[in-house]
């Protein structure tokens, strides 16, 4: 019995080696090393719109208010209104087709996953990847709540972040329609062209150019 097990093990080992060496022969240069699942897990932090990649965790806007005040408000304001030139995160509904569009997480961002992904990977500014997964869900929930997308007791989690419907989800056009100009035949006008030549604006009159 024991011998039989040994023989089977040896056979399995042989087949494993065969598999490995056949894989190795696919490799053109035999450079680099195989990544372990643990190595990949540490760096693979992205979250897709369908929720793939969302780490296990949850949070409500109710809890998020305090985390936001501590971690985000110094730049973004207590209510996401923005301080100085730092981005506004709330509002802007109905402004995208006006002369002064306000693009916020509520009015413009098409996916809740993107808010989670970005906050976890890049925020707070200068202390990235320092938030826990739960804190990140809490902050995202608070932003969604302030933008009237969820209630303050809604438990946002890895299970439902891919299901949140954002107001501007259908606001994006694909594919790229360019070239979207008329002259793509390489033969522009060379003489006596009918173009406006009146000066209607000068940069120096706007006077925002930095001086040396």
């Amino acid at each position, binding site marked *: 019995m024991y011998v039989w097990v040994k023989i089977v093990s040896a056979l399995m080992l042989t087949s494993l080696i065969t598999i490995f060496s056949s894989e190795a022969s*696919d*490799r*053109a*240069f035999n*450079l*680099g090393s*195989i990544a372990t699942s643990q*190595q990949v897990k540490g*760096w*693979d*932090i*992205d979250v*897709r*719109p369908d929720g793939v990649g969302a780490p296990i965790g949850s949070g409500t806007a109710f809890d998020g208010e305090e985390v936001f005040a501590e971690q985000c408000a110094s730049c973004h304001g207590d209510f996401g209104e923005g301080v*100085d*030139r730092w981005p506004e995160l709330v509002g802007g509904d109905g402004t*995208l*087709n006006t*002369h002064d569009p306000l*693009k916020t997480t509520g009015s*413009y961002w*098409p996916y809740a*996953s*993107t808010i989670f*992904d970005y906050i976890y*990977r*890049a925020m707070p*500014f*200068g202390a*990235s*990847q320092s938030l826990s997964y739960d804190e990140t869900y809490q902050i995202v929930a608070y932003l969604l709540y302030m933008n009237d997308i969820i209630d303050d007791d809604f438990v946002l989690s890895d299970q439902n972040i891919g299901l949140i419907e954002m107001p501007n989800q259908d*606001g*994006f*056009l694909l594919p*790229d*329609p*360019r*070239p979207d*100009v008329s*002259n793509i035949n*390489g033969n*522009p006008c060379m*003489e*006596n*062209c009918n*173009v*406006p*030549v*009146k*000066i*209607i*604006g*000068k*940069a*120096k009159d*706007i006077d*925002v*150019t*930095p*001086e040396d």
Partner: protein
Amino acid sequence: MKFSRRNLIKSFAALGSIGFSTKVLAQDKPNPNNLPPNLPEWTPDLGTGVDENPYGSPSEFESDVIRRNVPWLTASPQSSVNFTPLQDLEGIVTPNGLCFERHHGGVAEINPTDYRLMINGLVDREMIFSLDDLKRFPQVNKFYFLECAANGGMEWKGAQLNGCQYTFGMVHNVQYTGVKLSDLLRETGLKPKAKWVLAEGSDTSGMTRSIPIEKILDDCLIAWAMNGEALRPEQGYPARLVVPGWEGNMWVKWIRRLEFGDKPYMTREETSKYTDLLRDGKARMFTWVMEAKSVVTSPSPEKPILQKGIQQLRGLAWSGKGKIKRVDVSFDGGKNWRTALLHAPIMPKSLVRFTLPFEWSGEELLIQSRAIDETGYVQPYIQELQKIRGKNSIYHNNSIATWLVNKSGKVDNVRLG
């Protein structure tokens, strides 16, 4: 608001001139003691030796040839941009120290020994490569321009910044040394379902963009050198992604990971930022290619005409769709055009230098340049872009600029209409 900002800038400028008055610039008028038949002051004495300056730097008289930024543009200098001084450069190679910078969280400092590139997702083998591994792959050396999608972005509504540097300087052109991703991926293999790549940086912003696999396999590189030396830290040292002809933010610096998937990842940059808001409130997404563009670098607001007579107009042209075929120049605001001389080498997705001699007798000029690429695409006027896209776009302004040369030879950025 505008006035206080302006005054603020002026007061900073004043502070600068008091605090840092050591700047040496070429003097306006020559010193007769250095001119024939006199012995110039630098001739009798010994100069500095070969041990003085192990890594060379430009002449002290070139100290105004620098990258510049617009302080009021962004909330912090770590998430901001500066501009290449195109008006001071010749040929098509941008010196490494003058390549414009655009960071989303400052410059990451990476010891190359600790550098790793991970490739994961829909590949046959998830793998990790050191910098030394990357350098053992077959290498390529290629010139490419890199242009920020927002180059000229402040000019959508009108002529705003009075400088060639500020209006066109978010572009540079260097020779990259690197490995083709199509070669690198022979090592990992690709699963048939792999359609998109997430490229991820290891800087504090964790910069991420989705790129279709056709582009990745066509001509993308992982580069470790520019213009013959290691990448500069601000350009992604020790390794960056090169995405020829496509908008600069996709060229992820300090690249740490490529993940292969079956769908785009819809990162912050490709949804909330680098998208083009149209008049009706809808926005174009995944507008990657940088269309044909050109600029007259001299004369320009920074390069006035100094005296009457023969002048050598100089400029740069480029297209993300291939080679530049022709550049035309107008001196009367676009009514009549002359074809400029293109200087070899003319390479696809690289800057091309053009020149055109002209006589100036003190008259007012409205100088424009217009690039035509090998696809037949003709660089448009801003009005044509505004008609289709509205005025809320930030990115992909490749329109023709106008430099007004006044009777004194000074040059201003103006808008015609």
